């Protein structure tokens, strides 16, 4: 144990060697020949892998089998027909796909469905219903906080999180902590007003 650096109290070197002799010894030479970077290519093309997952979606227990490549957004929209979450850019740049994963706001377009295994997903469909709107949904209606409405489900999911995270203290803070949700119609001033209105109701 003398060769163990003191800061590595969390990792057992012995366990590492014991567990890994068989596989690691063979691959280490190959693995090391390559330095990190480039396009991390590989010769052998793997086959499609489908795996079973369980999710809690808006309070409902769901079991399904997904291709490892499927994003949570595609599973929600295509497999589960929950089309409230929108695909704006599919690359993390717009926020239209925002959902809550175990209560934290998350981009479903950059989340693989397999990553959500065992987690609770809340989408706009789970927030309120047409005759029983969530305070944030009502605030968006009251304040005209949308025009075309495409970004709105993401804005609302983000708005709720913005308040529960405690980042809705001032207009400037709301703007900063809502900046992950773009709006091509530029309804921004009304969105800030809606978040403020809902903050009063959610906290009060």
């Amino acid at each position, binding site marked *: 144990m003398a*060769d*163990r*650096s003191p*800061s*590595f109290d*969390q*990792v*057992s*070197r012995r*366990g*590492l060697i014991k567990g*890994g002799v068989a596989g*690691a010894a063979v*691959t*280490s030479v*190959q*693995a*090391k020949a*390559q*330095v*990190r*970077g*480039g*396009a*991390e290519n*590989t*010769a*052998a*093309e*793997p086959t*499609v*892998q489908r795996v079973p997952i369980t999710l809690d979606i808006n309070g409902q227990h769901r079991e399904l089998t997904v291709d*490892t*490549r499927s*994003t949570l957004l595609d599973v929600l929209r295509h497999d589960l027909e929950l089309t409230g979450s929108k695909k704006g850019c*599919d*690359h*993390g740049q717009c*926020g239209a796909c*925002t959902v809550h994963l175990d209560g*934290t*706001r*998350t*981009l479903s*377009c*950059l*989340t*693989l469905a*397999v*990553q959500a295994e065992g987690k609770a997903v809340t989408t706009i469909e789970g927030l309120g219903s047409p005759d029983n709107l969530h305070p944030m949904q009502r605030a968006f209606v009251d304040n005209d906080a949308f025009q075309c409405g495409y970004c709105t489900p993401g804005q609302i999911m*983000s708005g709720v*999180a*913005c308040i529960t*995270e405690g*980042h809705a203290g001032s207009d400037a803070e709301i*703007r900063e902590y809502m*900046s*992950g*949700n*773009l709006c091509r119609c530029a309804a921004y001033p009304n969105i800030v007003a809606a978040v403020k209105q809902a903050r009063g109701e959610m906290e009060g």
Partner: protein
Amino acid sequence: MRPFHYDKPATATDAVTNFRPGAQYFAGGTTMVDLMKLDVMKPARLIDISGLEKGRYDFIKWSGKSLRIGALTPMTKLADDDKVRARVPMLSDALWLAASPQIRNMARIGGNVLQRTRCPYFRDTSYEQCNKRKPGSGCAALDGGVTRHHAVLGTSDKCIATYPGDFAQALVALDAVVEILGEDGPRSLRFADLHVLPEARPDRETTLAPSDLIIAFSIEDADFPRSKYLKIRDRESYAYALASTASALRMDGNTIADVRLGLGGVATTPWRAREAEAALRGGPATEAQFARAADIAFAGASTTDENAFKVELGKRTMVRSLLETARMEG
């Protein structure tokens, strides 16, 4: 997206010992999923490390003035940590000014430092030329491309891609150390030695072997209450830096006892401005001194017509960041 196998090992040891060529670690996945959709990254196997040992690598620990942060700590958690904000605001600033709240909830700090460049030709495989993506293919940026966002420091005639991250500038300025678990066991590395200059081989970005797992970052002396991260970009929020400065000062009366400078948005790797620091140490904290140091920091800049503005912008950002840091309580 190409097919891949998905593994979720229980322990760090399992992750490293079962590593095979073609595999890649997967933390928050915000860089990986983005680049896999673009067919820029093509892993045969993803090793999801996000839940290793039930959060064992998600921690923020102080011991005296030393700080140690687990590599799987979410960006949000570190950005919002009260003690970090009070004692080394630069670290928190560099995180909350990055990406968006959603991405910061997903991304982990280990993945953050290894994020890839946003050079549009690297991201778009319809361009044949990109030495970083395809060694030896040329550089579409240097060959008449749009280069407004590209680097002016640390470039080579093979690649001028900017290192896009913010947090790494604070780590490099604070002399952080990277704790790694590799096939031969644990080891550590100066953060300054993690990333490598593009030189002749821009596809080589770090000194890590593919199976090396980052476990934690440690900073021996993280007590810099007088520090900040200033980020200048095309829009107020949710954009990469055009120029940024992580600056920290320790004053002895009116004399600069210690100064740290990390420059972002302008260089090919996380960039420590050591000569500028040396020029400032032992002198007064005046605007004239800061301007002289900024000239030194950018003396070696190499520009294109489109990114030449970054030299002046980078200098002004550095001077403003130092002036604002000097005005903080220390």
